[in-house]
């Protein structure tokens, strides 16, 4: 298979869906001629024109609310929002409207809208450009939330997102954008389903469930630990809502030990949910307490040494897994 970058793969997926379905359109700041702050739409303006690649004013609440109305009336908006931090201004539209529209209308309206953009800490982006915030959208009902970590998943999940009649948050960790990986040929039309975890590495001693960029860090950690004979199974849930607990519990049944690695904050986060579910459903299979490795509970600082101190890294993860195995 050919190797392309994460951004290229997602862009290819977008392009294919726009070609397939003329009701798909994109809005965002600088996603037109410019091709997007992260090159998410590079080249598409020339292909699909200003109606379907529509630059917007700086009005996040406005254009997300607008796209809500569009999704109710026959088109399929993709909102390219750059940083999750920016769309906190649209939370009202996302929670009160988008998430509830199908319910409020008893299923007579659909909500085929995709919000896509960056999350995550890295590159001294500081506290207004480093947010994660996805756990909240798994907490409230009504959203599909995906966090692809490979180019192949990025493409396949974006295609599924655009075809879905449900609202989807498609979140791209900024440090993954330029990573490369194998992606099937354009004619393959591969759709990756929501709620299906990917076992990224098999192992028998510890189950490590990791999200977003932490999948890569955890795979590195697993590689190192393998040299000491600690075999870590690494699971990438790929979507946080729905969450594929089946795959997670199957793995746990094999290993008896679990660590959850999430750059996002710990309290009431994804790790808490998984730990609570595991404690509830697989209490007797646990050989040790479920451990969580999270980003430090603080606003994200700018300066490199401070920034590095608040995100789990390979060593933090290795340490946590060694401790867990020792218990």
């Amino acid at each position: 298979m050919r190797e392309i970058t994460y951004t290229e793969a997602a862009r290819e997926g977008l392009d294919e869906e726009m070609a397939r379905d003329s009701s798909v359109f994109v809005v965002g700041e600088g996603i037109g001629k410019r091709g997007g702050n992260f090159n998410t739409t590079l080249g598409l303006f020339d292909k699909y024109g200003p109606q379907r690649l529509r630059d917007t004013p700086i009005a996040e609440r406005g254009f997300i609310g607008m796209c809500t109305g569009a999704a109710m009336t026959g088109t399929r908006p993709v909102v390219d929002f750059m940083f999750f931090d920016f769309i906190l201004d649209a939370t009202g539209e996302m929670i009160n409207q988008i998430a509830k529209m199908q319910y409020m209308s008893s299923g007579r309206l659909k909500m085929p809208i995709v919000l896509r953009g960056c999350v995550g800490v890295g590159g001294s982006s500081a506290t207004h450009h480093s947010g994660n915030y996805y756990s909240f959208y798994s907490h409230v009902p009504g959203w599909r939330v995906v966090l692809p970590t490979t180019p192949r998943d990025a493409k396949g999940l974006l295609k599924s997102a655009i075809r879905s009649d449900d609202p989807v948050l498609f979140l791209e960790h900024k440090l993954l954008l330029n990573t490369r990986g194998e992606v099937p040929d354009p004619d393959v039309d591969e759709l990756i389903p929501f709620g299906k975890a990917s076992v990224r590495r098999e192992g028998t001693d510890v189950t490590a469930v990791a999200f977003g960029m932490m999948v890569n860090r955890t795979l590195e950690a697993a590689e190192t630990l393998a040299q000491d004979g600690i075999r870590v199974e690494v699971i990438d849930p790929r979507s946080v809502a729905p969450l594929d607990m089946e795959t997670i519990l199957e793995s746990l049944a094999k290993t008896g030990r679990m660590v959850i690695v999430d750059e996002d904050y710990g309290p009431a986060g994804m790790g808490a949910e998984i730990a609570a579910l595991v404690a509830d459903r697989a209490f007797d299979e646990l050989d040790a307490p479920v451990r969580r490795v999270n980003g430090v509970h603080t606003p994200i600082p700018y300066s490199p040494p401070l920034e590095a101190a608040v995100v789990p890294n390979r060593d933090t993860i290795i340490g946590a897994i060694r401790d867990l195995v020792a218990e």
Partner: protein
Amino acid sequence: MQTETHAGADLNLDTLLSLYRGMLSIRKIEEALVRLYQLGHIPGACHTYIGQEAIATGVCAHLRQDDVVFSTHRGHGHAVAKGVPPEEVIGELLGRMTGCSRGRGGSMHLFSPEVGLMGTTGIVGPNLLQSTGAALSFQLLRLDRVSVCFFGDGAVNNGAFHEAINMAAIWDLPVLFVCENNMYATEVPFAYATRNTDVVARAASYGVASQDVDGNDVVAVFNASAQAVDHVRGGRGPYLVECRTYRTRPHAEGMRDVGYRTQDEVSQWKQRDPIAALRTALYNDAMATEEQLSAIEERVTATVDAARETAESSPFPDPSTATSHIFSE
């Protein structure tokens, strides 16, 4: 200002009677809801449209079924005018399975996409944005459908107004903004909440065509909307109509209604009742007889009574359906 409906000027009798019937239906439904509320049969909130009927009626008279309406917390009138059957509106407020939202929504969440009612909203603002989005769909799909947003003076000071009208303007979207300026947001006067209560002038400052109209004069609203809908459907971009009006009941049923407006003000506006005004005009202009008009009133009353009975005898939704339709599959 003095509401004086001039019936005969340019509308034919059928149209006038249909406007009369439309306003009256809304009024009778609201009156039924008030009584049901007072009897304790409406479990949630109830914001009536009494006094403002001319607006929904006059505007929606120009809409096709495939045009869409986005409304507010005060949305019963818009629902009815867009064609939601009375028993579905009443049923919804009673929380019944037969309500237009199947009992899930209540007064502030009326949905009937089948007839183009795309929702009322419990939150002030989103309807402005969503209507703009529907207009964007119609533009993208090259359809000559029109999107209409009803909103109150209270929404004008919200960021949603600013962002919506600006986007509608720059992209020439086919959306009609109808501001129902009843001078108060709950108890806060519009004149307190902004230094510029001239919503038409504000529309102009975004480059949006606009006009204001006596919102208690259904003929005036009808004529202004004819122009407005024509403008919008014709692809000439958004349009704003400001309707100056008044709600004669409390903000919501059960709320105290003192301290922020005078009894005098309320009575003066009651004298400008849009339904009575049209009735008087029809009668004075010798276009309809007292009997004709009373016959219409009786039929409307009978229809609403029957609708109320149907609604009251409808079942409550099955609790096991509480979680259906969160997602499409």
